[in-house]
């Protein structure tokens, strides 16, 4: 084995070791690296008590209500399994929409709702013209209608969306 091959192997080995160390460290820090937790985590009691934390999920369709003052609002964040009611007073980002992703920072209240101090919109990685988006939406609705008709269910089941 030539010395330069030895060196190359040494570099490769060192890189592998650094990689493994990084993987272990990141794995141990996993819960600290995540920016937000889901309503399911909150329901499971994983939320820190009396401390600021972030929740993330989709804004449930039809759940947004505004108080008379126009800046206090209430909406439900869902991960399609568990729901969490969020109260927020402030200005919502432009991309905040029902059915779309959201990340909110705040605290749990005694009544089990979430008092948000900051609400951020999380958009997905799809980029397309409005006409294409409408076509996709129509196709999804048709498919859902078909499925609902086939199952003879009263309402179309909501499909979990990837990438919220």
């Amino acid at each position, binding site marked *: 084995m030539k010395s*330069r*091959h030895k*060196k*190359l192997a040494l*570099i490769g080995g*060192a*890189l592998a070791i*650094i*990689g493994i160390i*990084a993987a272990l460290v*990141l794995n141990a820090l*996993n819960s600290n*690296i*995540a*920016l*937000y*937790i*889901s309503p399911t985590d909150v329901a499971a009691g994983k939320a820190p008590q009396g401390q600021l934390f972030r929740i*993330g999920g989709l804004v449930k369709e039809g759940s947004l209500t505004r108080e008379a003052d126009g800046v206090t609002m209430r909406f439900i964040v869902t991960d399609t399994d568990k729901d969490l009611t969020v109260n927020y007073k402030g200005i*919502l*980002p*432009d*991309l*905040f*929409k029902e059915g*779309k992703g959201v*990340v909110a920072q705040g605290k749990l209240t005694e009544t089990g709702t979430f008092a948000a101090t*900051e*609400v*951020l*919109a*999380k*958009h*997905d*990685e*799809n*980029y*397309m*013209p*409005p006409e*294409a*988006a*409408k076509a996709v939406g129509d196709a999804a609705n048709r498919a859902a209608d078909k499925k609902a008709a086939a199952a003879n269910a009263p309402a179309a089941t909501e499909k979990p969306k990837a*990438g919220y």
Partner: protein
Amino acid sequence: MKDRFNLYKFASPATFYPLAGALIPYFAAVSVVFGLAGLYLGMLVAPTDFQQGEGYRIIFIHVPASWMSMFIYLVMAFWAAIGLAFNTRLSGMMAQALAPTGALMAFLSLWTGALWGKPMWGAWWVWDARLTSELILLFLYIGYMALTAAIDDPRRSDKAGGLLLLVGVVNVPIIYFSVKWWNTLHQGSSINMGKSSMAETMLWGMLLMAMCFWMYSIAVALMRVRTIMLERERHTDWVKAELSGEGK
């Protein structure tokens, strides 16, 4: 042996210097062509986005800059490994020549990201895994430049810098996969395994801009490596010949 084309010939600064000089105008020209085509597609042809409106168009700078910031780091780490293993003079020079461009790309990525984040997410910055690891990449570039600049002896400076580059290379897959591995505010990748979730013209605009950034990076890195060569090899005959005008 003389007829055989020998790649190692270009590992010598004396032969690489004129080659780099001859290549620079081509890379620069190709970069301009790709850039004009990319900007035309991205700004004028690509459709408005269904949820972000016109604001999404910053993607034509943001994504190519982010890609290049990661790719240049990988190339630098590659040169560092070659330099440490084979003791080639040129490797360290290439790594040092690429560093400022890599840092520029990382900075552009963070800056355009902040400009994009405020109107869309509602925040200039969040400490999510994607943003934080990209910031670490910028620090790695700056750290590398500071470290190599602090050591006068070029050989030792290349070695120290090379080690830093190799240790830091774990950060690149972390940046890339951060949106998969953890909950982040940053959305996932639009291009996965050859599939894309973008409209075609948008995708082409982005790819053309990425080519433009790539060619630009090569052109400026070659310019910079020529300067480094002259500086480091100033006592050699070929540099003296070059500077006195005989090299041409």
